[in-house]
């Protein structure tokens, strides 16, 4: 199965990139944008989807500072 892992900074953890992007957008004429967060996207083919969660905890995400969410690759 093709899977997508979305990794984002945990709530409350400083997100310098999100702040930088949010600051930049108005200057480019894109108003009305808020609450910007920048994370990582990992897409992979996995034979055993049930192993994805463990993969995220062990390697793909840093559970101390990041939350992750597993999406079916076809969705969205």
């Amino acid at each position, binding site marked *: 199965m093709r899977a997508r892992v979305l990794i984002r900074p945990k709530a409350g953890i400083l997100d*310098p*990139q999100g702040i*930088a*992007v949010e600051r*930049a957008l108005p*200057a*480019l004429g894109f108003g009305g944008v808020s609450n910007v967060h*920048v994370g990582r996207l990992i897409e992979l083919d996995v034979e055993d989807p049930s192993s994805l969660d463990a993969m995220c905890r062990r390697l793909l995400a840093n559970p101390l500072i990041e939350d992750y969410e597993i999406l079916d690759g076809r969705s969205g």
Partner: protein
Amino acid sequence: MRAGVIRFPGSCDEVDAQLAAARVGDAVLLWHADPDLHGVDAVIVPGGFSYGDYLRVGAIARFAPVMESVIAFAREGGLVLGICNGFQVLCEAGLLPGALLPNDHLRFRCAQAELEVVNIDTPFTHGCAVGERLSIPAKHTTGRYYAPPEDLERMEATGQIVLRYAAGTNPNGSLRDIAGVCNADRNVFGLMPHPEHAVDELTGASADGLKIFASMAEAVDGRVVA
């Protein structure tokens, strides 16, 4: 030559670039928020981490007010040199072809780069000889030059590939060992290595980088600078 070195929030090597350019003329700092280029003869977009390199290297700096003027300046044939982060900014701004991607080894690496001059028919390299070796430090995490194959072919043909890493010394996985490129009109030049850090043997391993600034000064002033 009166060079203007842009200072973005997060620029790091702007003062080094100013000192290097001052060895062959005058050099002033230009503030990112001020669209006025104050009549400089050449613009240097320096190294560093403009806007923290957040989102994507050079992506945010490219929209700074001063960049609109730099783009106009370049379109009128003004000399623009982009070093490291400056190279990335110029690619993002569309003044130079291609893009810079994370090093193939994914680490920041600081080391002397051995460069081969490919094209001396530019305002930035005419003080060099074809095939001449320049030893100039490079230090970056995102220096892997990329352009689509068809563009690379065209660039080879039109002499837009100005510097290559010497065979077998490519430090970042750049396509075709490309270290520096210019635009079709050859008045805009970007490179990943830092010539401003190779202008004095006391604080650098060589003074080879001075040749680039001297070439620019000569192009602007129409005279040879020692």
